[in-house]
């Protein structure tokens, strides 16, 4: 194995470990839930990305095969991290915050997450009876 490849793999592993420890330490250290959401969803995701790239480079250098598994895992983790962060933020908003205490989002509308069910939330009105296909497509 070439020396520069060893250095690349080792540097990626060390950087990934540092990012992971920063993410997990931020989960302990930061003061309130909304700031705590930042550390794991960003730093730890970057850390696992570094480990996966190091693994890809290692298997390419050591055994001469390029594996797509790591790319799949990276893609899935990078796609699912924002979704889990959004869900956890919604749980926090609905369980631990009062809707009156939140800052207004600007216009005349309220937070979409707190809006009552109805046309304001983007729900389609029920099709009128006897209208046939036209109403179903609307």
């Amino acid at each position, binding site marked *: 194995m070439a020396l520069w490849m060893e250095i690349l793999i080792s540097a990626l592993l060390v950087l990934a470990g540092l990012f992971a420890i920063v993410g997990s330490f931020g*989960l302990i250290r930061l003061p309130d839930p909304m700031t705590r959401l930042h550390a794991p969803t960003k730093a730890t995701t970057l850390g696992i990305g570094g480990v996966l790239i190091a693994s890809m480079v290692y298997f390419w250098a050591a*055994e001469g095969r390029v594996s797509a598994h790591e790319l799949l895992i990276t893609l899935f983790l990078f796609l699912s991290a924002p979704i889990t962060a959004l869900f956890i933020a919604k*749980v926090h908003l*609905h369980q631990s915050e009062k809707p009156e205490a939140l800052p207004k989002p600007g216009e005349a509308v309220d937070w979409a997450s707190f809006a009552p069910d109805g046309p304001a939330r983007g729900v389609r009105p029920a099709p009128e009876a006897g209208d046939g296909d036209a109403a179903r497509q609307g």
Partner: protein
Amino acid sequence: MITPMISVALIFAFACFGLGLLLNLWRVLTGPAASDRILALDTMVINAIALLILLGIRQGSAIYFEVSMLFALVGFVSTVAYCRFLLRGDVIE
């Protein structure tokens, strides 16, 4: 096949991710709200996936990729299911 430099870097990364796992466990145990506990569990899943991949590098085996892929899927689905249960009182409506 593992050279000494990569071996030392692997040990460092193992230590970092293991320590991160312990810190997440602390947040799971003491988290004041349910959202903190869900977030800590989700981070634990990510750290465990990283440990599995490091083990795969250490042993030169590709079978751990399948394990970590399954782990990622189960972790994501369980996080979303738990959040939905807390938000709506029901997982599948």
